[in-house]
């Protein structure tokens, strides 16, 4: 499995503990980051990859602390540059499994450019975007995913910025794998991580993460007991898209061709749009992303898009390594002597 460094299927019987570093976690009590950390550490053994061959690259922000808590190799970079830093690691070392953990400010504000370029190139990285719709580490300024009019330390009269929809942005940037999940939904998080790990190339995962100190409850609609049952639209490839406690609601295509929510009872099973994460063009995934500009009502989660396309650097490193290992003094000699030379004796 190039691109994520797995040693085939061989079982290393690893446990969650093997991925937990000795560093004391320093997030605020109750922070959603704890839940994600637990899920990731819990999932890692499944990869069947030795922690020695895994690298976590993070940016700056509360989310960025993640690297210190994983007992793998880790780089805690500077603000916004994690995808570029990780591109260096992954390109130089396709034998490694490289994971990026970043925040909404880190990867969508200062780091937006590196994010879209790594997705476009399809660099073999698993990018976990902890979206808490706020700047946590700097104590509560609004972020590019905060709602319009948000009142924060830096916007006492409300922000004027229209936010990004991270899933839509990733799709617009040619991402080959795009998913969304919710910090505390252990099972769902694991499922999405599994799909991402299996995907060749870049995998982009937006994780709704509650910042209970500066933006508590931002995701209640899809996170809080009693609401999430109503609002989580769980996308499953090949399945008709329906949701609600009894799956009584669903997604249909209206007359004008636009996706809409409907009561299954009214429109009938067969009218439901069947999710196709493998569709080559990202049109459907993008339309689904538009169903909820913000996670305040029915909101799709799960894998929006998962298609194969050439992985950045695929095959290259192998070739280059061979070339390099074969290139010796003689070749160097040849290189220096190339072009017109003359000899003075």
């Amino acid at each position, binding site marked *: 499995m190039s691109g994520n460094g797995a040693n085939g299927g061989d079982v290393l019987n690893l446990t969650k503990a093997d991925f937990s570093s000795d560093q004391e976690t320093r997030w605020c009590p109750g922070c959603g980051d704890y839940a994600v950390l637990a899920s990731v550490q819990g999932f890692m053994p499944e990869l069947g990859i030795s922690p020695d061959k895994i690298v976590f690259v993070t940016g700056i922000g509360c989310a960025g602390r993640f690297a210190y808590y994983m007992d793998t190799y880790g780089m805690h970079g500077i603000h916004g540059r994690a995808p570029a830093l990780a591109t260096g690691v992954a390109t130089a070392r396709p034998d490694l499994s490289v994971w990026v953990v970043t925040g909404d400010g880190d990867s969508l504000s200062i780091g937006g450019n590196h994010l879209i370029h790594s997705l476009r190139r399809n660099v073999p990285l698993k990018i976990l975007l902890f979206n808490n719709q706020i700047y946590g580490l700097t104590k509560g300024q609004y972020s590019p995913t905060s709602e319009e009019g948000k009142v924060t330390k830096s916007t006492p009269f409300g922000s004027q910025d229209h936010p990004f929809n991270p899933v839509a942005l990733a799709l617009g940037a040619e991402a080959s794998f795009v998913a969304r999940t919710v910090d505390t939904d252990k099972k769902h998080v694991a499922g999405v991580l599994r799909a991402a790990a299996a995907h060749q190339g870049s995998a982009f995962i937006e994780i709704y993460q509650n910042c209970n100190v500066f933006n508590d409850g931002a995701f209640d609609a899809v996170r809080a007991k009693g609401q999430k049952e109503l609002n989580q639209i769980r996308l499953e490839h090949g399945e008709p898209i329906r949701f609600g406690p009894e799956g009584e609601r669903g997604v249909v295509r209206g007359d004008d061709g636009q996706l809409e929510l409907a009561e299954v009872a009214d429109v009938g099973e067969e009218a439901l749009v069947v999710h196709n994460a493998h569709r080559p063009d990202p049109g459907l995934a993008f339309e689904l992303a538009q169903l909820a500009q913000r996670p305040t009502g029915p909101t799709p989660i799960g894998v929006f898009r998962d298609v194969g396309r050439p992985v950045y650097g695929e095959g*290259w490193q192998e070739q280059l390594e061979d070339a390099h290992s074969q290139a010796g003094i003689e070749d160097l000699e040849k290189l220096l002597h190339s*072009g017109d030379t003359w000899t003075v004796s």
Partner: protein
Amino acid sequence: MSDKTLEKKDRVVVRFAGDSGDGMQLVGSRFTDETAVAGNDLATLPDFPAEIRAPAGTPHGVSAFQIHFASRDILTPGDHPNVLVAMNPAALITQVGSLERGGTVIVNEDGFTDHNLKKAGYESNPLEDDSLEDFQLFRVPMTSMTVRATEDIEGITARDAARCKNLFALGLVSWMYGRPTDPTINWVEKKFADKPPVRDANLAAFRAGYNFGETAELLAVHYEVEPAPAPPGTYRNVNGTQSLAMGLIAASVKSGLQLFYASYPITPASELLHTLSRNKRFGVRTIQAEDELAAANMALGAAFGGQLAVTATSGPGMDLKAETIGLAVAMELPMVIIDVQRAGPSTGMPTKTEAADLLMALYGRHGESPLPVVASRTPGQCFDAAIEAVRLAVKYRTPVILLSDTFLANSSEPWRLPDVSKLPDIDPGFATDPSGFEPYKRDRNLARPWAIPGTPGLRHRIGGLEKEDVTGNISYEPENHEHMTRLRAERIALIAGDVPELEVDDPDGADLLVLGWGSSYGAIQGAARRTRRENGVNVAVAHLSHLHPLPSNIGEVLRSYDRVLVPEMNMGQLVKVLRSEFLVDCESYTKVDGLPIFTRDVMDEILRRVDT
């Protein structure tokens, strides 16, 4: 056998100038080869127009190539040409200013149409009025003679033929200086092997030019420039870009580290990207990143991954790499950052040279973030500078800034090929032993272990937050930060003991020392030789390759001279450093006009300071 007088000359500077479309760079490189084969020492400098492809015939569309060749060794492409070959009025009007008084001007008469004269901005025809009276003017109808010489060739239109006029010019000048014709003839035959008509047309033009010189009354004299005595060895012509690229590849081979080169295009550094990207066969990986920040970060990531990480750019791009270089300082990972300096500030003059990024290289990052700075001095020496930068980076686990400049990148000179088998090995010394491993435990060079992912049992995490000594864990302890800050500085300072002492060339106990760094080397050395020879001046010269840390003996050296002159292509940046380090009243000669420092400039400065 021609009946013309043959004069001996020991050095000549020729400048070919024409429209971007006229193939002047080709003429230049061909003439350079002929000259190399003739055994002269030489130095060349191409001068490209700033615009990609400016309208034909306009001054800003002029492309020129200067070559300086001699019967003894020389060090620069020459200050002022003795001979100017101008293919059109634009070439003449833009270039004649730099020509030596009394110099020779050879023009392609056919190019001087009213239309072209107007485009160039001439009120009246300089060939007719007296504006060239200070020079020796030769009017040669190159285009028409080329057309005539090729008219019998099958499948060649007059237009195609006219295109060969550059080889006519080449032939003519080749005759003037008794250059061997075989190199060019062979080259043309190889190059156009599959286009016989084009091949024949070019050969005909070349011969026509050569014969015109021999036969026409017009030129009464031709010259002989005897071979220059050169140390035995195999030579080739290289510019700074080529030798820098070869140096990096050599370092990769000698270290066993795969070369990872991430860069964002920028003039003049792009050429390095182009050159390296062709060297897949050495396992060189080149990446064109989305910007300079990404390029630096990709390189740093690759360094963590265990490769020979290099990123290169020019001025504006250096600004953007600053934060990442600071991270590399904190992470203590080996990495080379190349700055091919160009004329600033801001976008400045992208195609012109300058050396005004020294202080930025030393101090252009927030906080205390010291790192080694190395500078190359000649096109050929870029090879050694690259290897030295890599050696320091790997041995001391530190980012190293290597300074080159536009002049070095484009200028070329004969380069005596080193014996690669004698190049020292570079030991990556990867950490492998888990017992007692600590990410920030140091060896006797104060360097920390390079423990790359995939190594069993060496899992660790590094970042830009202050780290606890030895363990590398995050620490906000006051004492630790004080300690680590001094440790980072000390580690770099230690390198002074690991670099050659500053060598001074002072044959006759001078009072004046001329100290330089970077591409002013040729001009300074040349000025010293000539003032010694021509003016009987006593002057000492020395040149710095390591700008930080400075060689251990430099203080001593500076104090042992009454006066120290430091010529720089900036407003006196090295002088600032020297004065502050050693409290020596060094004097500046500064030049910031986008051109290299000339030998003449330095000579004048020397003469002003010594009584002869």
